[in-house]
């Protein structure tokens, strides 16, 4: 269920979708309540601890970093009103907006950021995303070079020039948190509306675990007057079928997880939007095995995969056949260019027949003509999605054309 995709853009997209649903649908009049589903009950909505997309969506409603992303994913000032960057690009001096307040009315200060960022890298906090801070000086020593010379100034010293640092400051893990509350309540602070105090556009008014999280506009937010719906009800649904039913009935106005086999029925309807999500589906080879440690064998296996078939018959949701590992949607060093347009493909995923011929040839060069001499190996998959099994079966068939045999082994508890 958990979609652990550690990338900014995916989160932004989910966020912008939620918002786009308010404009276009009948149930979304300004001032009322917008009911949406972005995922099931989150394990945590502590900004430091979260590593799930749905958790991040909830967090960016309640917290705001120094910068925030606009609807195009471009960093714009959030809690900071501006930033000065040193000529070598390693020192960032942020100035906070005037009169910033937490949802309980206390002032937001520069030291809240210093505390939150150091907390996130503390092994005792055990944050999945601690490594996001490793661009900052002092990360290895466990004491970040982030200082608050006064209440309104945050100075960050980076190890080297980091062109995407402003984007990082918009990432949920970089949100400020309240030292007084966390020291008093421990991990439990992020489980109750009374202690879950944020500095973002909304505040949590109710959390019934497994049922819903309700948020209302935070009147202390600096940009309060430009906010949309008065209330947002995040329904915590787990079952894709249930989500679709609730959507059909109009009980929720947005969902991003419908059953795979329903996609064909919905794809031509106006309510259905395909949105990009950064991520690459990949298979890991165990190179401890001598035959798989041979790069030619791996190359042959990779070439023999009919990606268009997998995308068309199994994925069904507009996935793009991958010609290289980095997903489409990341900009190059020059932000106006797509990384993958610059980088190009390792192979042409549209020429399956040609790739298969090449694969046979390479496998023969590796010393295994028609797969002879190559032992049958195991392919492990888990049950988190039906697609894992279907892809395994497809690979079994595709690699079979090379004469390579695999046995599909189901093993639960593996993460996808």
């Amino acid at each position, binding site marked *: 269920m958990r979609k652990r995709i550690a990338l900014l853009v995916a989160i932004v997209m989910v966020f912008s979708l939620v918002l786009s649903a308010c404009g276009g649908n009948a149930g979304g009049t300004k001032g009322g309540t917008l009911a949406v589903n972005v995922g099931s009950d989150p394990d945590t909505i*502590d900004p430091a601890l979260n590593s799930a997309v749905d958790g991040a969506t909830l967090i960016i409603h309640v917290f705001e970093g120094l910068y925030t992303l606009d609807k195009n994913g471009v960093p714009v000032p959030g809690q900071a009103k501006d930033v000065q960057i040193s000529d070598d690009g390693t020192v960032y001096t942020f100035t906070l907006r005037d009169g910033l307040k937490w949802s309980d009315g206390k002032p937001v200060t520069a030291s809240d950021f210093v505390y939150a960022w150091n907390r996130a890298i503390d092994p005792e906090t055990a944050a999945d995303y601690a490594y996001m801070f490793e661009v900052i000086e002092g990360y290895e020593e466990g004491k970040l070079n982030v200082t608050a010379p006064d209440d309104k100034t945050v100075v960050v010293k980076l190890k080297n020039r980091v062109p995407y640092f402003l984007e990082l400051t918009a990432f949920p893990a970089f949100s400020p948190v309240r030292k007084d509350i966390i020291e008093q309540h421990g991990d439990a602070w992020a489980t109750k509306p009374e202690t879950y105090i944020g500095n973002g556009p909304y505040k949590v008014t109710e959390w019934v675990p497994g049922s819903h999280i309700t948020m209302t506009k935070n009147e202390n937010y600096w940009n309060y007057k430009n906010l949309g719906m008065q209330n947002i009800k995040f329904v915590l649904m787990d079952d894709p079928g249930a989500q679709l039913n*609730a959507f059909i009935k109009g009980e929720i106005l947005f969902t991003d997880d419908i059953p795979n086999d329903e996609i064909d029925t919905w794809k031509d309807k106006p309510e259905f939007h395909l949105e990009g999500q950064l991520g690459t589906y990949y298979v890991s080879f165990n190179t401890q095995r001598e035959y798989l440690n041979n790069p030619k064998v791996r190359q042959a296996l990779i070439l023999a995969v009919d990606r268009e078939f997998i995308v068309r018959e199994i994925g069904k949701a507009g996935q793009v056949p991958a010609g290289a590992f980095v997903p489409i949607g990341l900009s190059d060093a020059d932000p106006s260019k797509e990384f993958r347009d610059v980088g190009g493909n390792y192979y042409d995923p549209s020429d399956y027949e040609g790739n298969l011929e090449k694969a046979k040839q390479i496998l023969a060069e590796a010393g295994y003509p028609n797969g002879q001499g190559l032992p049958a190996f195991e392919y492990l998959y888990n049950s988190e999605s039906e697609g894992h099994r279907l892809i395994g079966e497809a690979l079994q068939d595709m690699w079979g054309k090379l004469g390579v045999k695999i046995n599909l082994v189901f093993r639960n508890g593996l993460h996808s």
Partner: protein
Amino acid sequence: MGRYIVKRVFLAVVTIWLVATITFFLMFMIPGGPFLAEKSPSPATLEALNRKYGLDQPVIVQYKNYMLNLLKGELGESIKQRGRTVGDIISRGFKVSARVGGISILVSVLIGVPLGCVAALNRGKWLDNLIMVVATFGIAVPSFVISTVLMLIFSIKLDLLPTYGLTSWQHYIMPVIALSFYPTAYISRLMRTSMLDVLGQDYMRTAKAKGLSQFKMLFKHALRNAILPVVTYLGPLIAYTLTGSFVVEKIFTIPGLGNEFISSITGRDYTMIMGTTIFLASLVIIMNLVVDIAYKIIDPRIKLK
């Protein structure tokens, strides 16, 4: 009776201890752990996490600590749901599941018992056949099929009932039907069989010969004896139904306890696995004790030893 209860409570404690011990060691034999992810935490983080939850200790020491805490009634903190205690999660989920489950048990008994009686009294006639066909259907069709069909008809096609949550009485209708379908069917079959058995007894013929009314005969003499198998079945049924159904709660987005049983195991949330298991085991044991005492009340001839 007092002595009997003391003895049973003592046995219950032993049973729960055994269940807890076996679960504890089995749990550590499942490969994997709560902190495994595609990007594993750094060694320092992993160490801190293991220390926080006492997982750095040898299993036998962890066992000792767990048992000592259990004696104090502490189930610890959930490893996966950071900041929540196992006790809170269970009590919160149980309140919801027990409400839906309690209503469905009541419905099953109130419908199942009369249906079984009616079938027995009309043995071989069309009414009996009809009830038994419906009951067989109820036993054969799994709850997720019933839930999905109900939702399709009443929510999507007829637009009468809400699809998720538990905020009004309308919300209870579909989950309660889905949960009570199987037990209702099972109880009516059970009731029919045992009623037929009782109706063939000599004392029933005597009662009839004395000229007792059919109503009195049935309710005063037959039902009391015939209901014993149903009571036996109710014990574990109540325990399992009150703790929630994974499937039905998932389909209707009910924030109950059912999901915790499954997710704690797949997530290797050790403290939650222990908590849910001990809770369910205790409930089953308590319900069995209640059933045995109920026997005694219904049929005074039964001796409790």
